């Protein structure tokens, strides 16, 4: 019998006071539960697979709970890609399943902390053998690692069909294949920060960019794939694409100049950057 269940709590990226407050509230509440063995780690997505924190996570063999600022799917496949075994668990009953269950709970700025704690309690209550509970009164364990903000694709292997469209599409050498021709994210850090292009190209909706603003791209399991499709009407209207692209760009620049600080400014900014920087 174990005394407590490993609960991994991923910190947010630095900077947001509201998020920090939520972290404090949740970690305190978790520590007050004797059946929780809490470890606080840096932002999951920013961890290097070869770094000490992922190494530590790989060594955990029991069912565990991972709480992070990522959608469950994104968190799970980020871990799995780093060699952390298990299956994404949804119900307490999943503890009976073949692979070690990993429960991934997603945080965001508006999350109700109670819903997270209820979920943790539900999972603890459903454990195969009840926990005896920690006897100590210690602080949570903190894994410290120097991280920087990363940006790279995460593949949901349950969805990926192995078509290699992403490999053919990406111009930055992010993708490669292994010896059995399976898709591999060979150079994650060659990915262009902010570029989610290949996630829209993947026919299976298997590619996630967990830090992207669109839920369908950042890993919301329920967000529709249809929303990801490109609208090529501009190309098929018969107008010369070069004229179209330039017109788009001019419009973008104009809109930016005419609106002092538009809400959509960053979007337009990035569209213009996209047009400027893309080295084709």
């Amino acid at each position, binding site marked *: 019998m174990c005394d407590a269940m490993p609960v991994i709590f991923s910190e*947010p*990226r630095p*900077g*947001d006071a509201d*998020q920090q407050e939520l972290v404090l509230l949740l970690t305190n509440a978790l520590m007050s539960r004797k059946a929780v063995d809490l470890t606080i780690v840096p932002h999951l997505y920013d961890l290097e697979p070869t770094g000490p924190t992922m190494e530590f996570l790989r060594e955990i063999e029991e069912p565990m709970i991972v709480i992070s*600022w*990522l959608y469950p799917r994104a968190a799970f496949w980020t871990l799995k890609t780093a060699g952390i075994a298990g299956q994404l668990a949804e119900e307490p009953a999943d503890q009976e399943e073949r692979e070690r269950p990993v429960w991934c709970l997603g*945080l*965001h*700025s508006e999350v109700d902390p109670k819903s997270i704690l209820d979920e943790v309690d539900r999972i603890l209550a459903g454990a195969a053998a009840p926990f005896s509970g920690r006897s100590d009164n210690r602080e949570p364990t903190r894994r410290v690692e120097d991280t920087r903000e990363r940006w790279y694709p995460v593949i949901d292997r349950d969805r990926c069909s192995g078509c290699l469209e992403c490999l*053919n*599409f990406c111009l930055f050498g992010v993708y490669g294949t292994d010896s059995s021709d399976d898709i591999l994210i060979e150079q994650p850090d060659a990915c262009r920060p*902010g*570029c*989610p*292009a290949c996630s*829209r*190209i993947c*026919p299976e909706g298997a590619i996630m*960019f*967990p*830090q*992207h*603003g*669109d839920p369908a*791209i*950042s890993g919301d399991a329920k967000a529709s794939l249809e929303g990801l*499709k*490109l*609208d*090529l*009407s*501009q*190309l*098929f*209207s*018969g*107008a*010369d*694409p*070069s004229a*179209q*692209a*330039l017109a*788009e760009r001019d419009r973008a620049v104009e809109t930016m100049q005419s609106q002092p600080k538009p809400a959509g400014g*960053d*979007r337009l900014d*990035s*569209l213009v950057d*996209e*047009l400027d920087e*893309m080295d*084709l």
Partner: protein
Amino acid sequence: MPKPLVFMMGQSPAILPVDRRYARNHMWVIEMGETLRVGFSAYAVRLLGDMRHLEWSVEVGTEVLAGQQIGFVEASKATSDLYSPMPGRITSFNDSVLSDPGLINSNLYDSAWLMELQGVCDGLLDPEPYVRHLEASWPLAQRLLKGQAGRNPNQDPR
């Protein structure tokens, strides 16, 4: 039949038969006596992916203008409105591609034609000029694609 032309879209060849002409909106046009038969070029099909759904917003008999919107296509990678490549009167739509759009992927230059119309084939390009049109516009088409694919940059603190 003479050898088709090939335009390389990155790694993927787009095959362009030389027995027909091409519209700038990536449709081919072939004369069949009085009528002109129209279909997608391989370039269009490659950009769109596997065809899933095709619909026309005009009826047989309609007089259309060049560039008039006449339908919509949804494929695995993209969607697009469809536009008439030239002015004329629509004489028929191909029912078999309407019921099985996937035919377009397997047979785009033969049985998977899209529609027929009677009109003047002004402004169409011969295969070589069409390839030059593709060459000239491919980099910018790519940028446009990526520009669109790159929208919604991350603003979420998550």
